[in-house]
């Protein structure tokens, strides 16, 4: 083990820095504000520090390590040039309060991204300020709220979500103060229009839904769902976490949505190691545009003076929407993430559609390959499709229900078995509507060979006996971690002897 807090460099020694302009004795602090004891941090030299974090990195699995079919998370390759771009001083070393003539490059890129995202989603206006998908959801429902207030429709207090929705949907709407109405899905996992009809009314503010849904199925009745909600005066919200499936083939705008968030860190590949950072812009139709957070980027013809500083034929400027809800993040969102996603987008341009097509091709191919290999290996009775469909979109679900019933092998057991085979496990137990669910999303950046090999290895895992799988994994840095122990014996920081 390498532990950070077990590095005991000599006291008084620390990271070498230039001398301060004045000695500490000349600094004047209120006496009751002087720190009495420095933080009990460890003391590491650079070689120790580098070795510690390198050791840690080797105990971590990323896309670079191997196949990462984590459903709903779109774990695609992160192009490295994007990291180079994000470290250029023109992004790393700029301040959001600099005047706009000093930031024309950034503003032009923001404008380009707003425009591109609006086109791809069939929306009229975009803000890049929200810094994650969940914050995009929250921002959009706040805009809905102000929109209704503006129209005097204070009675619209309810937000409808299908039971297959991601947890952030109801959580975000509840944070904005809405009451949540959850409706059951149909047997086949798709939206139940009669259940929707039964709950909509005068008090409906919005419906939040993702399409393809969390089972990887395209909701064919989506236009109908939109009109049901619109007929009662509600708004339609598109959770864009699954945008990778449809980009260039259809759009939330075409499906009748009023607002959408994009998980740029998924679809546009901003690395989010360990769980973030992300970027969650939202796009809206014209009627909601006046409520967007401020500022967004607009452009106009430059004045003669401005022409010297232009990056193209336009002058880019911050614009405050007329009835803005204000800010959801203190600055201009995750500018560095937006930049990386811009770099990602530029390498596809109008061929973004090919990206989605390959995401869907790969998902369907993998689904096919798993069934093919399972038949060959005689394990096809141990799982069923999570949903009965001819084609999936960018991801698909399997239910390990039969394995659980006949052999006592759970989706979690199979997941742990896959870790031993050198894979990241698919998402398990989500969506909740599929028993013993395994949700698999290969993304477009995996080769046919990787998919074939994974399909075979998946079946090899299913051929293992229950006891072996209950004991898996055995080849990982640690074996199954006791989450109950962690919760009962809370240890959330390094315990010092003198605490």
């Amino acid at each position: 083990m390498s532990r950070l807090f077990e590095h005991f460099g000599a006291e008084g020694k620390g990271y070498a820095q230039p001398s301060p302009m004045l000695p500490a004795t000349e600094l004047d602090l209120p006496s009751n504000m002087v720190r009495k004891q420095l933080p009990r941090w460890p003391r590491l030299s650079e070689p120790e520090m580098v070795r510690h974090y390198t050791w840690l990195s080797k105990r971590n699995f990323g896309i670079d390590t191997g196949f990462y079919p984590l459903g709903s998370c779109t774990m695609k390759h992160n192009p490295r040039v994007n990291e180079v771009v994000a470290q250029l001083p023109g992004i790393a070393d700029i301040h959001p309060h600099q005047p706009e003539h000093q930031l024309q490059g950034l503003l032009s890129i923001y404008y380009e991204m707003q425009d591109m995202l609006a086109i791809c989603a069939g929306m009229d206006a975009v803000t890049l300020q929200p810094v994650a998908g969940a914050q995009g959801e929250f921002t959009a429902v706040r805009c809905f709220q102000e929109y209704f207030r503006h129209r005097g429709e204070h009675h619209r207090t309810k937000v409808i979500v299908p039971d297959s929705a991601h947890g952030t949907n109801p959580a975000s709407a509840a944070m904005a103060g809405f009451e949540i109405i959850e409706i059951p899905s149909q047997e086949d996992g798709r939206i139940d229009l009669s259940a929707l009809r039964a709950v909509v009314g005068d008090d409906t503010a919005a419906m939040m839904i993702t399409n393809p849904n969390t089972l990887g199925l395209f909701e064919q009745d989506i236009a109908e769902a939109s009109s049901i909600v619109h007929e009662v005066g509600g708004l339609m919200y598109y959770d864009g976490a699954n945008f990778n499936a449809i980009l260039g083939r259809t759009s939330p705008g075409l499906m009748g949505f009023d607002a959408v968030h994009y998980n740029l860190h998924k679809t546009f590949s901003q690395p989010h190691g360990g769980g973030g950072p992300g970027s969650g812009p939202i796009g809206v139709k014209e009627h909601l545009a006046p409520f967007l957070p401020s500022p967004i980027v607009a452009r106009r013809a430059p004045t003669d003076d401005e022409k010297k500083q232009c990056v193209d034929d336009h002058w880019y400027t911050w614009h405050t929407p007329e009835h803005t809800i204000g800010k959801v993040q203190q600055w201009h969102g995750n500018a560095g993430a937006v930049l990386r996603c811009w770099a990602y987008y530029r390498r596809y341009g109008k061929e973004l559609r090919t990206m989605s097509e390959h995401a869907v091709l790969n998902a369907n191919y993998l689904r096919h390959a798993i069934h093919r290999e399972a038949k060959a290996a005689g394990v096809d009775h141990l799982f069923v499709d999570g949903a009965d469909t001819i084609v999936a979109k960018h991801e698909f679900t399997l239910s390990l229900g039969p394995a659980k019933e006949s052999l006592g092998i759970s989706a979690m057991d199979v997941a742990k078995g896959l870790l031993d085979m050198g894979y990241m496990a698919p998402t398990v137990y989500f969506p909740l509507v599929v028993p013993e669910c395994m949700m698999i999303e290969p993304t477009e950046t995996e080769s046919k060979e990787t998919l074939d090999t994974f399909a075979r290895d998946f079946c090899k895992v299913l051929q293992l006996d229950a006891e072996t799988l209950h004991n898996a994994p055995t080849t990982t840095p640690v074996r199954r971690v006791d989450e109950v122990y962690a919760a009962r014996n809370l240890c959330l920081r390094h315990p010092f002897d003198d605490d």
Partner: protein
Amino acid sequence: MVDQLPNLGREEEMLKEMGVASIDALFADVPESVRMVGDLPLPDAQSEEELLADAKRLLGANLALGDQPSFLGAGLYRNFVPSCVFQLVTRGEFLTSYTPYQPEVSQGMLQAMWEFQSLISELIAMPITNLSLYDGSTAAAEALTCAVRVHTRKAEQKDTVYISELTPPDRVSVIHNYCQGAGIKVETLRHDENGCINLDDVERARGSCAVYVEQPNPLGIIDGGYPSLKEIIGDKTALIVGVQPVSLGLLEAPGNYGADIVIGEGQPLGSPITGGGPVYGIFGCTQPYLRLMPGRIVGRSIDVDGKEAYCLTLSTREQHIRRHRATSNICTNETLIALMGAMHMSLLGPEGLEQLAVRNMAACTQLKRQLAGVEGVTLPYDGQSHFNEFVVELPASTSACLAYLEANGVVGGFDVSNWYAEKTNQMLVTVTDQTSQRDLDRLVDCLRAWAQEVSA
């Protein structure tokens, strides 16, 4: 594009094997009425080289602050990030991972985050720290809603919180957005002429759910009145203190003067300012807030062999389990930037942090001294101690001053009239460990010359 898709050109082969006629057939379930027809009206794909050339051209048109003396801060602070931090954080095993749902293959990030929690807990003197919120502003907002969840039932002033009137308007706006959904009333606390909080006014906050202040405050003042706050507001009201983490190499940790929740903009530790994001929000608290706090948290545990191991814990507060009853909607957070913070802290060590704080404060003190000799420029809060920044009162409008400075190759400070419209002649001047004596001299010379010019 062609270099990003391994199966480009192999579509036929794969489709044939599946028995599917075409790519179109894979989208047959998309009803015709909602299909997009034609190509996306977007430009052609670029190669890596073309992209890089465009990126350099466009980003080169931005004025990078390192290119000239600069004095802009107001919540973000230019710092030096040691080379190791970039080298290590871009290791693919860290960079390309995600939320550690499978702890057995995510021990590296989990342990690094547990260490991050340990480092920050020590820094702010709080027993509990989560592994980051989006930024300082959302951390402040979530601290307030968390405090309401904990206290409102027994509070005399239900659903009411008090924030310092100096809280920057952009941050207040975030707070309002987060609070209004929960029906929280946000009141403000007054400050005295000298820029410090009016302790008598704080009495009003007794019986409310929370008080929020920042140290140093948004005018850069180190407020010596804060140790009295907890006693004034009592146990049933949360004291929330926002910090600039580097300052804690010199300043007392809020946990040692009664804070219940400590939040902060983590950026100065480990991250370049990057136009304001990604940065990371610090959130730490005491025991009573633990089960109602937002965000992910890592616990130390054991594996089936009894070996030390780490995993996410207390997840029953979170959206994926609790859905609309979750304590927050946060899912994707800022872990990778927090990791940069952890790396920076582990290189600094306690004395390194202290020295970094001294350098920041020394530069600030030095500039104050130099400006004291400039005719026409006054320091309205001169009697106070400052960290990183302070307000200067100018003989003419700040916008005129900023234009003059820019014409002379200096990026001036923050125009305070952006916060308070009536303060047209005030500038918040920021220095950090990256400010040199030469930068200070340049600013002082320019201000002197400009002040003479406008008074003539």
